[in-house]
């Protein structure tokens, strides 16, 4: 599945950075929640985590990994003008070692968005939502860069 790249405007970047600054204190928790919900609502994603003993939303492994993912996303926001460069190593990891079907990036993005909406209903306006959605889509594209 390929998605036409919609580049991030200056406004998108400003909105994403400002919103991320706001949610910074909770990103680890949000990541854990998002990953837990992904595994619950989209059970096919569990196939990538058969090495974990507990795939429930309460699992310490799930929460920790969710936090790791959100940390990487936060780093990427710091390098938002060159996502491809910023994600080069992670792209190699996902392409050659983990071999995660890139369709799953969209699934995780949906769950991150849902949890952001839950935690920050007043701040996660449609305008913030669209910029975050575009950013996560561009992030996914950068993450898929090394696949083929």
């Amino acid at each position, binding site marked *: 599945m390929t998605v036409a790249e919609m580049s991030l405007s200056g406004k998108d970047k400003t909105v994403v950075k400002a919103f991320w600054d706001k949610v910074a204190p909770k990103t680890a928790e949000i990541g854990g929640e998002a990953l837990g919900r992904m595994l619950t609502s989209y059970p096919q994603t569990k196939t990538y985590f058969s090495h974990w003993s507990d795939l429930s939303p309460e699992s310490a492994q799930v929460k920790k990994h969710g936090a790791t993912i959100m940390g990487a996303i936060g780093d990427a926001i710091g390098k938002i003008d060159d996502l491809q460069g910023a994600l080069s190593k992670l792209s190699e990891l996902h392409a050659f070692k983990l071999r995660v079907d890139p369709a799953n990036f969209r699934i995780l993005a949906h769950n991150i968005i849902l949890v952001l*909406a839950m935690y920050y209903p007043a701040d996660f306006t449609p305008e913030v939502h669209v910029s975050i959605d575009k950013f996560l889509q561009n992030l996914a594209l950068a993450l898929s860069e090394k696949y083929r």
Partner: protein
Amino acid sequence: MVKWTEEERRIIRGVWEKVDIDEIGEELWARALIVYPWIDRYFGSFGDIFTTTAILKNPKLAALGKVVLSALDTAVKNMDNFKALYAPLSRQHYEKIKVDPDNFRLLAECITITIACKLRAELNPQVQATWQKFLSAVVEAMNSQYK
């Protein structure tokens, strides 16, 4: 048709009870038209639908929101056979309104996010999974006559 457990029925009814049709009916369009602006191709006669403020004040969108959520209410109340009940709606969207069915998936997503803003932690992982399963079945029913 999907077979629903008692637990799933209870969860879906539980979510639906908390939905204010008027409120959600407006907000879902704000999300859909801002996040997926190409949806506005079907709303040429609706006037100003280009900013959140305009969308939330637009009477035609408010009315349509109520229509959409009333149809969803039908599905909640007829969980075992709504696919058949939705056939005329599906045919109408295909043959008359000519809606790309991918939009049903996008609208369903916007409905879920809008509900997440309202229900917050009450939409726990199990509730989310069940609600999304229900909306997927609704989307499938809306796709059923596209042939």
